[in-house]
């Protein structure tokens, strides 16, 4: 049984639940969900995760600001690796998050479940 723990930070419950289902049932990961950037940062402070899957456009604080917060305080957020999970494909957004050290950029509708599991395992390994 895979003991790795993932955190999905995504404000749309249908998307968060769909990916949680894929990651738990196919990948055997333990998965938590945060429904926004602030909740995500709180969960990261309190818990330990092997990877964060992070949306960009969220109403409270967006994924880019969540990334900045994680980068600015590696001790509090345990320097957790982050992979973007988003429908934003704009080059400007990709460049912005790459500058902030993301470990991957996944487009929600393009990725097959088995590819997602593989990408997650690559980052965690």
């Amino acid at each position: 049984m895979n003991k790795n723990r993932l955190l999905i930070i995504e404000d749309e419950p249908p998307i968060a639940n769909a990916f949680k289902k894929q990651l738990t049932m196919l990948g055997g990961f333990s998965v938590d969900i945060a429904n926004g950037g602030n909740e995500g940062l709180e969960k990261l402070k309190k818990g330990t995760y092997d990877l964060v899957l992070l949306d960009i456009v969220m109403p409270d604080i967006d994924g880019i600001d969540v990334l900045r917060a994680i980068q600015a305080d590696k001790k509090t957020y345990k320097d957790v690796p982050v992979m973007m999970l988003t429908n934003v494909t704009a080059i400007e957004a990709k460049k912005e998050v790459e500058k902030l050290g993301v470990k991957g950029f996944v487009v929600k509708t393009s990725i097959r479940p088995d590819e997602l599991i593989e990408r997650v395992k690559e980052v965690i390994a």
Partner: protein
Amino acid sequence: MNANILKLKQQNAIAYNRKLRSQLRNLHEMLGDEITDLVTGELGDPDTFFTEAQKVIKTLSELTANLSVLLLKVKESKKELSAEEERDYHMIEELTDALGNLQYEIHMLIKHMQQSQKIKTFTAESLRVIDKIVETQEKFRAVRAQINNFGYMSKNPEIAALFSDKEAS
């Protein structure tokens, strides 16, 4: 479910997906109303734009999430998609990408408005939002043309009747 609808869905699980069709109808209305108003009316007034844009982002986010989940479910439910289904899948995938990018541009515009009151910044970035709106409308028109070819928002009265709201699922 109506046997004829079931038969059509077996041919093409995307084109004849009632929920997908319903989401596309909602998007069609939105692209015609709220988003166009945002460009033609509110863009000239930062205060109104800020309020309306946030509502638009919220609705776009829900629509995009619903379309994305429907596509994910289609891929999960069928080991292999037919050539027609693959084509429709990729077309709607491009539409969700356009919607995602449109949300991002509107979101960044709001963010910069909150951080700065400089009208110059607002004007320059608002042009990018307009470009993304036009791009999204073009992607939607392409999907709509394809949909009409397969008849589920059809001018063919028999097929349209199968998918009318009076049909119970």
